[in-house]
């Protein structure tokens, strides 16, 4: 009969304690402890196009990156500003249509339409969402969920921009190489840019608004301005992703407002680890290829990632990143009590 009970003990690795916060780095080893994960991330992302066997999978890489940008923007809005936007499709669709319009009506080349779509789309989305900014929680989530549906119906009802057929014959990127490195570069820039941004004094205000917006107001700060800024950043990212998507598929249409673009980034964020910014990208790297593999099964892949999503929400709400981080930074051992 074993009456001996154990519990798991977690202890920070010494190297982690030394290199945490103060950055008093004593050796190459400590330096590499800090930089290795980041380096692997960057190198891995950059080498992806070479690792992929054929055109089809290289295309998948681009799609992964587009979803990754979208998931990043969701994670930033939800976990650093406290605005849970279920309207990723709204950003994608707006960006996609703007790029499409600029390219097919004004024949502006892709390398200009993408940044233009990001800026114009960002402004457009921010203006559209501006009246909703005082809303909180469920209300903001529902209203953002409705926007993409609304836009799709408006385009359909007024039969503008090609109506249900969408805009066709849009230029693609000059080469698949340029396409992939452009989106990969964007993911990395946005990732590290946002990580840096949220720790600046200005970034802290966003976190404070999420924690407690009343107190921020009492500190003499106009929270609507900051929320609008956050929405602009997030929607500009989303619109840029949408513009890239349009140029990759050489087409923009109503299905860019489809719920797929809203739900997959959220799933990726939950699976990867919400509030970590890296997590969403990891999540996309896992989810998108798997769902491509399951493409033959048709809509079963949606069932598949919806169930994974539920599973993660219930049992591993911290996501993969939290797990990985813990393993990287802490010893675990069983001790007798």
């Amino acid at each position, binding site marked *: 009969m074993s009456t001996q009970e154990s519990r798991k003990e977690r202890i920070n690795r010494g190297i982690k304690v030394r290199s945490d916060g103060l950055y008093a780095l004593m050796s190459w080893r400590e330096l590499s402890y800090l930089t290795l994960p980041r380096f692997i991330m960057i190198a891995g992302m950059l080498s992806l196009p070479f690792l992929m066997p054929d055109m089809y999978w290289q295309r998948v890489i681009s799609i992964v990156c587009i979803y990754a940008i979208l998931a990043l923007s969701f994670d930033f809005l939800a976990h650093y500003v406290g605005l849970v936007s279920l309207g990723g499709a709204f950003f994608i669709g707006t960006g996609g249509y703007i790029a499409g319009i600029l390219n097919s009506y004004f024949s502006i080349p892709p390398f200009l339409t993408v940044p233009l779509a990001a800026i114009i789309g960002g402004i457009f989305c921010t203006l559209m969402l501006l009246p909703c900014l005082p809303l909180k929680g469920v209300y903001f989530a529902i209203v953002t969920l409705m926007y993409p549906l609304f836009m799709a119906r408006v385009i359909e009802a007024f039969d503008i921009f090609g109506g249900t057929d969408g805009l066709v014959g849009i230029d693609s990127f000059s080469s698949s190489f340029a396409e992939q490195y452009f989106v990969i570069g964007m993911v990395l820039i946005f990732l590290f840019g946002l990580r840096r941004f949220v720790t600046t004094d200005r970034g802290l205000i966003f*976190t404070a608004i999420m924690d*407690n917006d009343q107190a921020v107001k009492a500190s*003499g*700060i*106009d929270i609507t301005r900051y929320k609008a800024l956050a929405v602009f950043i997030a929607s500009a990212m989303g619109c840029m992703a949408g513009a890239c998507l349009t140029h990759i598929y050489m087409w923009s249409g109503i299905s860019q407002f489809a719920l797929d673009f809203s739900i997959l980034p959220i799933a990726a964020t939950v699976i990867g680890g919400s509030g970590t910014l890296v997590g969403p990208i990891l999540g996309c790297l896992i989810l998108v290829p798997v769902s491509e593999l399951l493409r033959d099964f048709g809509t079963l892949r949606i069932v598949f990632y919806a169930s994974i999503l539920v599973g993660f929400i219930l049992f591993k709400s911290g996501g993969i990143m939290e797990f990985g981080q813990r393993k990287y930074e802490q010893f675990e051992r069983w001790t007798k009590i």
Partner: protein
Amino acid sequence: MTDPILKMNGLSKRFGGVKALKDVSFDVFPGDVLGIIGPNGSGKTTIVNCITGFIKPTSGKVFFRGKDITGRPPHKIADMGVTRTFQVMRPYYSLPAYKNLVIPLFSPRAKRTGGWRGGGNLGNRQTIAIDILEDIGFERDSYIPFKKTSTLPTGYLKRLELARCLALKPEIIICDEVFSGLSMSEIASMVPLIERLQDEGITIVMIEHRLRELFQVANRVMVLNFGEKLIEGTPLDVMADKKVKEAYFGSEEVEEVMTYA
């Protein structure tokens, strides 16, 4: 007599059918420590919310330095130097204590006034934040200012609320029950802090249940009952008043407080 720094004029507020405030008028003069007391539900916090713009009064006006500030958004009012603490403490739980102060130090007002005492250049907000925390009673050279706010005890959180006001270099601080929930010794250390702030020329409005300590620091007291102003005067006047006794105190405590004063 000088002009009042803060002036309420016939303030009324109605929530649905409930009249939370009925025609309350009072003045606050520069350098005052005004205490507002009253039983639960008498509209004390509603007054704070009306002054600081968190709710709009149904009728009546609020003047700050002769300027009508009724119904202006909270951040504009805070920007003028009218700051408040919250009864239910609202620190930013996911930030460490000192970073809580970075938020007010980032506000336009702090940029203009140079923040806490220091003139002009704001420099590194995080070091200023630690200075303020030390000044308000967080132990220097300890780990406490760096702790997550969610792990701090109530006493520190109350001080943090005050510190957040101070970071704005306020003209008025409206304290919504800073003493409640504190132990006797914590209150005892808080009283000199309030007195010191008064010496520095900050006008203070205190909403309080702890009468003994309030009467120690306040130079004027206003009593509210069911949203109506019962009486306003010096602590001694208020304690002597019959109506107040009936409405609020209950005989025993009055004796106790009076003997103390």
